[in-house]
């Protein structure tokens, strides 16, 4: 008798991808007379029925406010809301009380920036003293960041008098670790960088950067928006202090994101947004705050979104993150090889010697990304054009915009090949008569 053991890290089979696609009604849509080929999951992913059903089941059977009210529905809603937190915590390797709900990843970054800013003003008292920033202190980020992991640090530096330093890129677009080693010093208080570039698709060497930050005694914030949906993620194994997540990029709804924060840090951080739901005792002149995570969750919470996001991570876990990662890595290679083979196409970061996810951005000589995107849309192919909220990265690579194809667990080989063929067709179309 033999036993068949499933390979937990094997790419998804064609039959499995077809079954997965049946869970995503939008993938049956026609666009401009063609079946939709959705290659913009890096911007926002599609939602499976399980996610939509979870939100609907909550709205139709349990909708009520959480953490208040003595009635049955309120108790059920609170339980589901906290279960959802536990699901997301498990998904990223955190403890339940280390996950703070936010509206999106941008708000999660701002939560940290404003909390440090408030600590710098003396809020949080002596407990928050170790978080204070001022002149002479330095914040380090990188030239490849999404604007959401750059501008909050520009503003924090401006408010506190700290200095923002930026790890530069080499000519391929890779982070220059030699420069990082010089920039991250005893003056560095926080290092903020992305796990996976939303433009290049490369997986950054987290361990190297965390090592530099640790030696300098600096905190680390990891932008996990492009990694959590696509790779197994363990914030404890990566040894980061903070990580930010975006729900709508990982099969969840819009309006929900999360901050992972190491418990010991969250406990000493003063709040960002204040108001209801985050307090213990309030007088007309003072307030005392709840412990984290509630300290950072002022106002009515995004209950149905949190529950739907939990359904999304359950869906991803059931398929298996290592398998999803393997499925998409093959697309990354296929995109880089297929597009690079076309005369006049430059895949951004193609020369970087790092593993990559199933995402590639490219520049076509003489054809603007908007025109290229328009041509591909006519074929039913949806992808992203523009600067992808990463102007400094594009400027470093000598361009103002690019076209990005990004895949997910529901993407097929045929869709990736359609992008490659479509780009070749666009070149013929726009060069006609020239």
């Amino acid at each position, binding site marked *: 008798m033999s036993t068949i053991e499933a390979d937990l890290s094997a790419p998804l089979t064609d039959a499995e991808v077809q079954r997965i696609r049946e869970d995503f009604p939008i993938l049956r849509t026609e666009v401009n007379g063609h079946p939709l080929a959705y290659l913009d999951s890096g911007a926002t992913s599609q939602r499976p029925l399980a996610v939509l059903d979870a939100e609907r089941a909550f709205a139709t059977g349990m909708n009520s406010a959480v953490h208040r009210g003595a009635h049955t529905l309120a108790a059920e809603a609170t339980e589901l809301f906290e279960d959802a937190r536990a699901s997301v915590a498990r998904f990223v390797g955190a403890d339940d009380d280390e996950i703070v709900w936010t509206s999106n990843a941008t708000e999660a970054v701002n939560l940290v920036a404003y909390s440090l800013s408030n600590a710098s003003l003396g809020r949080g008292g002596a407990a928050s003293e170790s978080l204070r920033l001022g002149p002479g202190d330095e914040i380090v980020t990188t030239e490849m960041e999404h604007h959401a992991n750059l501008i909050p640090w520009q503003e924090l530096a401006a408010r506190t008098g700290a200095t923002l330093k930026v790890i530069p890129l080499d000519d391929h677009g890779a982070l220059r670790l030699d420069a990082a080693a010089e920039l991250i010093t005893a003056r560095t208080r926080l290092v903020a960088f992305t796990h996976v570039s939303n433009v290049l698709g490369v997986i950054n060497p987290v361990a190297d950067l965390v090592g530099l930050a640790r030696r300098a005694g600096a905190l680390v914030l990891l932008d996990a928006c492009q990694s959590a949906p696509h790779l197994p993620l363990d914030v404890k194994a990566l040894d980061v202090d903070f990580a930010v997540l975006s729900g709508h990029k990982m099969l969840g709804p819009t309006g929900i994101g999360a901050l992972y924060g190491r418990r010991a840090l969250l406990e000493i951080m003063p709040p960002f947004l204040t108001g209801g739901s985050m307090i213990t005792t309030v007088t007309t002149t003072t307030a005392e705050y709840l412990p984290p995570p509630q300290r950072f969750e002022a106002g009515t919470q995004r209950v149905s979104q949190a529950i739907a996001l939990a359904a999304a991570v359950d869906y991803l876990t059931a398929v298996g993150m290592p398998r999803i990662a393997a499925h998409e890595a093959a697309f990354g290679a296929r995109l880089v090889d297929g597009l690079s083979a076309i005369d006049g196409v430059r895949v951004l970061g193609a020369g970087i010697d790092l593993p990559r996810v199933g995402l590639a951005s490219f520049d076509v000589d003489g*054809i*603007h*990304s*908007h*025109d290229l995107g*328009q*041509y591909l849309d*006519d074929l039913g192919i949806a992808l992203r*054009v*523009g*600067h992808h909220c990463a*102007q400094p990265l*594009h400027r470093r690579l000598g361009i*103002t*915009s690019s076209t990005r194809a990004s895949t997910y667990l529901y993407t097929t080989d045929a869709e990736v090949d359609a992008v490659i063929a479509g780009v070749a067709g666009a070149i013929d*179309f*726009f060069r*006609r*008569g*020239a």
Partner: protein
Amino acid sequence: MSDLQNLYQELVLDHSRTPHGYGLREEIRAQSHQLNPTCGDEVTVQVHRAADGTVEAIAWEGHGCAISQASASMLADLAEGLTVDDLEGRIASFREAMRSRGKIQPDEEMLGDAAALGGVSKYVARVKCAMLAWVAAEDALAKSTV
């Protein structure tokens, strides 16, 4: 002709590849810089006037998609020799056609080569590309009369 071919007519591609009026002048009378923040496309337009007040030339520089580049080039062709009132009227006419969602065909007599951009109005997301230089010219004219 498909919508896509109608959007990117040969005339549009020709203008985008060899734009007219490209290159800013040192003497600046009336100038406007316009940026489309969603894509980073930008254009700077100068309106140069003759002694009698008519538009002697439109000079511009910028970068962007074929639609935005062709549109600036066509505007430069159109504007030469017009009175300011006439140019403003034609800009208004172009805007009306662009915002019509395909209902109003641009008038070739009034808009010259820019009438070939009629296909843009069906693509709401691209109207801003076509309008960028025209908005800049309008702004430059408004500044010049202040």
